[in-house]
Every structure is written in C-alpha cells, then in structure tokens.
C-alpha cells in the first residue's frame, strides 16, 4: 500500500520540480527582439575605434545620457556605410524618416532607483566592464526578456533564481549594488540608491 503511494508522491515531487525549474522560468519571460541587431564589436576596438564614452556620455551636470539619440547614429550613418541588412534598416527606417530607434534597454533602472554614472565612473573610477561586462564587444544584441509579472528586464535580475552560473556583470539586483558598496565601504543607506 505504501509503495505505490511513495511512487505517486515522488511523481508529484518530480512533476513540480520540472514545472518549477524549467517550464516556469521559460513562461515567465516575454521575449522581444531589438529593432536593430546592433554590433558593438564593429564599432569598438580595432575595427570601429570608438570607445564607450563616444556614444554613452556623462553630461556636465552629472546626468548620463544613456543610449544615444538617433542624431548620434545619423552623424556617421546619414547614408549607409556598409551593406549589412541591419544598417539598411537603420538608414531606411530611422535615419531617413528621422524616427528615434525604440531600443529596449536591458539595464534600465526601475523608476524608484537612482543611479549616478558620474559618481561611479568619475569618483569611484569603475570601468564600464565592471557592471556591463563584455557587452561592449558583443556582435549582436540578445533578445530583451521582460518579466510578465514585474515588468523588469531579465538581464537585470540574473538568469536563475538561484543565481547559479551568474557572471559578475549578469544582472544588477539590489544585492549586487549593496555588495559592491559594502566591499568599497560606501554607505548602503536607502537614499543612496532610491529616489
């Protein structure tokens, strides 16, 4: 009597584990493709010669302009430089129509979070790669994954709940900010990062 009971029990357990660890994480996120498969690799390093701050700049009032406006792209790409299909989209769909590119921003902070690139870059002298990893040398853009419940970008929240196999730049949860602040003996008060 107990044997089949135990079996059923284990079957239930297994069922939950599969749903919970494989189906649920997959179903939780909505995937969106970026409007253009932008290649950081082409623009930076030996090939492109641009540095991060050429496009992502900190203004004199300490505000970070984030993803550059179309104007910036258009300053080089007023007409197609290469022959790639992505560049054709850029020129035909956005530059020539003067439409801003609706980028999906992986690292966009929640509205209640305050983050100053100026203090991290200028005062703490952090490298871009410290938080953004090798993103700057990637050849294509990963799909943007949006949590269906919270609306947050998955890249911010890490790949898995248990945060196994997580690269140092993969995600920036509140804990990550706090960890780094703690390591560097920076205050961890709420108002430090919340607005």
């Amino acid at each position, binding site marked *: 009597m107990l044997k089949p009971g135990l079996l059923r029990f284990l079957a239930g357990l297994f069922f939950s584990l599969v749903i919970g660890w494989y189906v649920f994480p997959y179903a939780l996120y909505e995937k969106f493709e970026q409007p253009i498969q932008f290649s950081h690799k082409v623009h930076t390093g030996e090939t492109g010669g641009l540095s991060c701050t050429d496009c992502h700049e900190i203004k004199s009032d300490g505000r970070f302009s984030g993803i550059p406006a179309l104007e910036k792209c258009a300053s080089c790409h007023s007409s197609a430089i290469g022959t790639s299909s992505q560049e054709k989209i850029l020129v035909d769909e956005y530059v020539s129509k003067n439409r801003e590119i609706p980028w999906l921003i992986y690292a966009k902070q929640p509205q209640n979070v305050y983050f100053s690139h100026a203090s991290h870059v200028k*005062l703490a002298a952090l490298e871009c790669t410290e938080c953004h990893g090798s993103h700057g040398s990637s050849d294509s853009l990963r799909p943007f994954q949006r949590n269906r419940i919270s609306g947050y970008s998955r890249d911010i929240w890490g790949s898995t709940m248990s945060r196994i196999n997580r690269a140092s730049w993969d995600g920036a949860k509140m804990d990550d900010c706090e960890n780094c602040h703690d390591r560097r003996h920076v205050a961890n008060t709420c108002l430090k990062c919340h*607005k």
Partner: protein
Amino acid sequence: METNHTSPRYGMVIDVDRCTGCGNCMVACAVENNVPPADPKATERTGTTWMRVSKLENGLPFPENRSVYLPVSCQQCDHHTPCVSVCPQNAVEYDTESGIVAQIPVRCFGCRYCVTACPYHARYYNWWDPVWPEGMEKTLNPDVSTRMRGVVEKCNFCHGRLQAARAKAAAEGRRTIADAEYVPACGESCPTHAIHFGNLSDPNSDVSMLSKDKRAFRLLEELGTEPKVYFLSEQDWVHAIVKNKISTELKGHGNG
C-alpha cells in the same frame, strides 16, 4: 543609529515672522516631488502635502486676533526619531549621510504605524491612486519617483535635488557640495525668503547660526526628538503658545 558628524546634517530654519502663508512652498513641493493633485473626495485630512502651512493664532477675539503661519514639513528628527523605530520593515531610515529621515515608499506596505507615531503629522498615506490629468504626467520631475496608492510618503528635503547636486559635483570630480548648490523646492520658492536651508553640522552655516538665535524654537522640543527644523519668531505670544502646549487645553472640536 549613529550620526556621522563628518557628514552633513541638513536642517531648515523658518522665519515665521516673514512667512505670509501664501502656500508657495506647498505647491512647489508638490511639483518637485510629483505629489498628485487631490482626488475630488480628498480633504484636509486625506490630502497629501509634504509641506503644510498651518495657522497659529494668539487666541484673542477680533480685532486683536493675530496669527502666524507655520510651514510644517517632516521635522527630520535627529534623535529618537519616532517613525524610524516603529516601521516593521525598515522602510523608514535615518540617512547617516545627510541626516534626512528617509521614507522608501517601495518598501512600505502601508501599515500607517509611522503616521500614528509622528507627532508632527508630517506623514501622508496615499489614500488614492495618484492620477494626473491627461498630459500632465509629462510635467513630472524625473528626479523623484512617483508613488502608488497604499504607501506612506513624506518630505525628504527634496532629496532628488541633493542627488542631482552630488551628481553634478561628481561630474566635476568633487565629493562634497556647497550649501548653495542644494536648496529644497520650498526654500527656493519662498517669496519672502523665510526658509533657510543648510548644513547644521557646519557651525558657520547660515542655519547653524540662526538655529542658535534667541528667536529660535522647535516644535514639541520637550519630546526629545531633536527636530532639525527650527522656527524663528520675535513675537512673544508665538513662543508662549508653542511652549505652553495649548493643544491640551482643548478649545473645541474641529476637523483640524
């Protein structure tokens, strides 16, 4: 709750003799901090005004009746802060880097214990979802997050402005900011310059010196909460009423 005395402790000194009770501070605060307009059903007791101008009367009949206006925001208690210790989930915190009592609405779950605890009635619960007329949401200040229904909010000395000032300093490679770089919206908007703002830890600052003026008083000082908002008045009756706790000598019922 240790106070780091090397970091600034921001405070405010309000000259009530200069205050005309115009209400600029209240609306400037609402604009700065993305406080929504009133719900049609909101009242004096359910509305949200981080800075609230109250009227203090001398209690005499017409025409001897005189009143002063007291703009009362969060008093940023420095010691035994009544709201910090009561919050069950650390949504209220004494910010050691500025002396500001921080309210983090996204942590708050709306139990309103802090509202009950605050003797200054400086805390406001969002009874309604914030609603802005169509298009007006474009006028929201990006330096301050909007809040949702069901949480408590209050004055934080326009902390968004402090963050902006710090970011600007950081861009220039500075770690400290001058007093003049950071003024809350109420102080900036006061047409009679009744509101002084600055670092109380700096003995040479405007507010430090004014706070030691013999005209200075604080609200409910005897409770020992060490508010960082001071008031100035030359009028004896103002001091007398504030000290004599007229409140327990109840005059009547009201919606106050």
